């Protein structure tokens, strides 16, 4: 297929941090926080 005249880095979607992580199937605390055992908050 011919490449269009312009190439959109984001594929036309303005994805927020949480959308990016959600699409990757990540199950991070509040969407983008990595918790370790010591700081685990009741979630």
């Amino acid at each position, binding site marked *: 297929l011919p490449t269009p005249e312009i190439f*959109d880095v984001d594929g036309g979607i303005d994805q*927020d*941090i949480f959308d990016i992580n959600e699409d990757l199937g990540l199950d991070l605390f*509040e969407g983008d926080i990595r918790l*370790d055992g010591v700081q685990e908050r009741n979630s």
Partner: protein
Amino acid sequence: IVGESYRWPHTIPYVLDDSLEMNARGVILNAFERYRLKTCIDFKPWSGEPNYISVFKGSGCWSSVGNRRVGKQELSIGKGCDRIATVQHEFLHALGFWHEQSRSDRDDYVSIIWDRIISGKKNNFESYDDRQTDSLNVPYDYSSVMHYSKTAFQNGSEPTIVTRIPDFMDVIGQRMDFSDSDILKLNQLYNCSSSLSFMESCDFELENVCGMIQSSEDSADWQRVSQVPEGPESDHSNMGRCKGSGFFMHFNRSSVNEGATAMLGSRILYPKRGFQCLQFFLYNSGSEYDQLNIYVREYSAASVNRTLTLVEEIKDVPIGSWQLYHVTLKVTNKFRVVFGGVRGAGASRGGLSIDDINLSETQCPHHVWHIRNFTQLIGSPSGSVYSPSFYSSKGYAFQIRLNLSSLPNVGMYFHLISGANDDQLEWPCPWQQVTMTILDQNPDIRQRMSNKRSITTDPFMTTGNGDYFWDRPSKVGVQDFFPNGTQFQRGRGYGYSVFMTHERLKSRDFMKGDDVYILLTVEDISHLNTTQNEPTPTLGVNDLCTNFKCENDGICILHNGKAECRCPSGEDWWYMGERCEKRGSTRDTIVIAVSSTVAVFAVMLVITLVSVYCTRKKYHQETSSKTANMTLENQHA
């Protein structure tokens, strides 16, 4: 996060992992510059400090909260996360920030619509009390870069967060820059009162004009005024929005003869980095022959006479509007910036006016695209507007394309075009990082939330038909014509169809006086394509440490004139030995303790059993011999 142990030192050691994309590396360094400008936090490449942040390309964008004191603390900038505000967001987590809407008082400001949240994700909307979080007496901040967007974790199309003040619905979730409250909170958390790269900001609203001084060696003075009959009608800071306020400095040409000068010097400034960017707005309502000279007056032991050096001469045709200017300075001694107005030929009235001066120890943008009458362009039939052509410092010619017709979004793309240097340049164009910024024209550089995105030319990128994407435009581009009729070739565009929304573009000071500024920087980032995982040795250590290699990422240092290894450690593990060759952990200790106990118990058991056996055997033999010699009597007594 509550707890002093979570704080980092003011200068954070970092490592950019080899896994990071080239564009992400440049973006991360740009994000560090925003920290250096607006906060007291600085960053340095890791050189053996016990704790550091390792930025790598993992899956997604994430960070831990606060300094976990684990040695290497990871922060992921994955695919799609190479956006400056996203990096700022993740580093704010690392510095100890939770999300804004998890504050204990958030229900007073936003409503969480629970039945619109994806099943199983409701736990992401909990709020926490002040035993876990501290908002540091800063009001709830809708515009925080740490706030969820209204669509976070939504299961349909309706918002999951509704602000109690409707005007803030489209403000939450901004991914542009720190808000004022983000900066206030960070500076309180880390007890800081200054930043590394900010120097001065002046909008001339106060009568002391920011400590600026009139020279006694000139023929006229600059005047602090709020309007001039010939223009401008208002200052640039407020643009006439506040009657009775809004001042700027004016050099009135009609009060002096041709050749007369007026010099206005800033207060004394103390550089730290040795390079500066001066930014200001200029309005020429006089003659095209008038001139604004930018000088630097340096104070040093060597220059007793306070050397005055001319840095730039600005000649501007009077066009009836404020214009943005940047001047690059390279000063290492204490100095003043001096604005010198010079009256040229011509009988016109009016003069030169300056406003909204900002001086910082940052790099100036390479090019400025000033778009006038911006609202007329919105919804124009063609939909796209091309910038004038510019040249990068390496010599590549390029244009920016602004797409205004795809409501509600504004798109922005970078195109290489054919240029005068193409025969001498490398093709496909390698590792040029293009940073495109829509300027928030707030008078104070520290309060701006400019929208900035970057792309990087990858020389190996190909198109669907096998061409290299960043190959020479005369080979892969299409023909077009400049307004003057000159023909050129334009390569394919690369950028963002959702650079920002029209709604957001109308907010803050992105549009001021119907003018929009797009700042452009194209820089070679090939040098970032190197490994930075070895700590930088300190001076003198290198020689002795050359033949003394530490294993397992240990650091070689000098101690009493001898090379020694300092071994990495975490909360429950460590390396030890002369060269950090042995690994230890609390688990090992437990295993050793338990095995020792079991071994001692087994040995004791064996000794006991043997003792019992021997005793019994001896007793049995003695009994048998006595029985054999005994005569039994009275057996039936």
